[in-house]
């Protein structure tokens, strides 16, 4: 393993190139990511043998990779924020046609008001499209999960799109040591895409054709069953990844110092790293605190969560998204995972870090010791700002 000191964007672009995609497509203007900029350069320089299709919107970018994937080639795209929302309609089509498209979502807030900074409302908003979602804690994971994503997506038991999510600014804009694997190692882990069906004039098939009420439900059921299969496959792919690259990355859920934890901090993405640091500090003060990190959000690893969280007295779900008029969507699902079970942890929904607001260690410590929280708790809501129409 040789680490290089590089920017997250560059690291993900190199991992993409190592995965040998044949068609890339992106809308090259805000909101976009540095990933496709790097990839476009590689294609222009001839170091990546692929076709790069510049399009006029994210809807078109998703449509191009849909079409290319349907012809049986490996594809990639990346987007963020409003761009992902514009892709949403096409994502449902990609999933419905069972196409193993892989993309990176650089998580950023959704307008209005205009905000370019990090939260996870964008990826959460495409939750139900039939796309697998994996969340990276750091840039190394953004690289490793991307390579694993192709293995998972292209498995004939799955054949669904996979999206690797990385917290915008916090990860891809940052420079840190990352190990970029060798081409030989990636080739041995990731064989060429072997499509089950593809658009071929000599053997014509229809994809995404009409399904009347007597068939549509069955198509949804099959996608759901493929998601269930992914719950088994994701840990297997992680184990094979470790065998090849010597690094434990991936899986469904990561558990940190949970053996005897009374309070569990639950999250997804880069916040987990800060939570682990906080848990260490709280443990040094004699508090039994652990961290549970969901790597897979779709499929939802309910069983794994019950196993890791089951003994905690309290669980604080810290998430960078909200279902307005309800609670944090992850918190709702964690609660559902424990429905009807006893004993079960008291689960609190903490909405934090929206629109790029920093989540300091002191804030996390305060939440961990605060006995009662609002439902949902808007973390670090400012008391010095006038909120028109709101009674304090």
């Amino acid at each position, binding site marked *: 393993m040789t680490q290089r*000191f590089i920017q997250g964007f560059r690291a993900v672009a190199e991992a993409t190139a190592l995965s040998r995609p044949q068609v890339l497509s992106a809308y090259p203007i805000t909101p976009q990511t540095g990933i496709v900029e790097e990839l476009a350069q590689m294609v222009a320089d001839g170091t990546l043998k692929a076709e790069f299709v510049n399009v006029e919107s994210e809807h078109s970018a998703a449509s191009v990779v849909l079409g290319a994937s349907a012809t049986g080639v490996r594809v990639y795209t990346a987007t963020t924020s409003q761009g992902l929302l514009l892709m949403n309609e096409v994502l449902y089509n990609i999933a419905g046609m069972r196409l193993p498209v892989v993309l990176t979502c650089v998580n950023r807030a959704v307008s209005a008001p205009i905000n370019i900074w990090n939260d996870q409302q964008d990826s959460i908003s495409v939750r139900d499209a039939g796309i697998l979602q994996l969340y990276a804690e750091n840039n190394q994971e953004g690289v490793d999960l991307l390579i694993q994503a192709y293995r998972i997506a292209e498995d004939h038991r799955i054949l669904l799109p996979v999206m690797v999510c990385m917290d915008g600014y916090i990860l891809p804009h940052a420079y840190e040591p990352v190990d970029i694997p060798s081409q030989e190692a990636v080739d041995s882990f990731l064989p060429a895409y072997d499509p089950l069906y593809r658009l071929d004039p000599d053997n014509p098939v229809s994809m995404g054709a009409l399904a009347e009420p007597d068939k549509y439900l069955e198509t949804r059921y099959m996608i759901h069953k493929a998601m269930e299969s992914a719950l088994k496959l994701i840990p297997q792919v992680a184990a094979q990844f470790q065998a090849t690259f010597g690094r434990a990355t991936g899986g469904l859920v990561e558990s940190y110092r949970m053996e005897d934890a009374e309070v569990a901090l639950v999250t997804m993405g880069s916040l987990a790293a800060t939570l682990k640091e906080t848990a260490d500090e709280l443990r040094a003060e004699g508090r039994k605190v652990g961290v549970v990190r969901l790597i897979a959000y779709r499929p939802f690893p309910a069983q794994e969560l019950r196993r890791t969280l089951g003994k905690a007295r309290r669980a604080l779900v810290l998430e960078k998204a909200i279902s307005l008029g309800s609670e944090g969507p992850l918190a709702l699902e964690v609660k559902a995972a424990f429905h009807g079970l006893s004993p079960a942890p008291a689960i609190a929904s903490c909405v934090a870090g929206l629109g790029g607001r920093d989540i300091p260690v002191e804030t996390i410590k305060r939440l961990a010791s605060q006995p009662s929280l609002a439902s949902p708790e808007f973390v670090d809501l400012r008391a010095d700002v006038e909120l028109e129409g709101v009674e304090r």
Partner: protein
Amino acid sequence: MKEIRIHARAGQGAITAALLLASAAFLEGKYSLAFPHFGAERTGAPMNAYARLSDAPIRLRTQVRRPDYVLVQDPTLIASQDVAEGLKDGGIIVVNSDHPRHDIRLKGKGQIFHVPAARIAQEELGRADRANAPLLGAFAAATGEVKLESLQKAVRSRFPGPAGEANARAIQRAYEFIKNHALVAEGDTR
């Protein structure tokens, strides 16, 4: 772990400064992280860049609130920002300035160094707004956290050719300026 906060304006190369600093530490076998905090993406708007240097892998992803070191790349920000905010006791501030700064108020023990980074940048690079590299040379001399040679290696690798050489000279001159000048301001105003 050592935490560094850089005060600059968008377009002055503060992200590159954080990257070069973290990169130099990485070359010395340390773990390091460099990341920006943007305001709205407008050239000239105040912004911060951060770096963390450590002997162990770095997990903390929050903004730097309690810096060990502060670099002020644009001294015009001192009037509108408390650049010493949150500085740890015994911390060091390095300011790009032709003269000693008495307008930075330390809340605890700390040291303030000034270095004419803009003037050095003007002379070596032909651009006074490229004070980032010389400021790092001054940082190395003032703190001893990274070696002069590591910074020069990092800048040469980032900007191969004449630009890298000019920056390496600018780093050297700023390093020597601090080594040859006595400490300018030291305070314990509690």
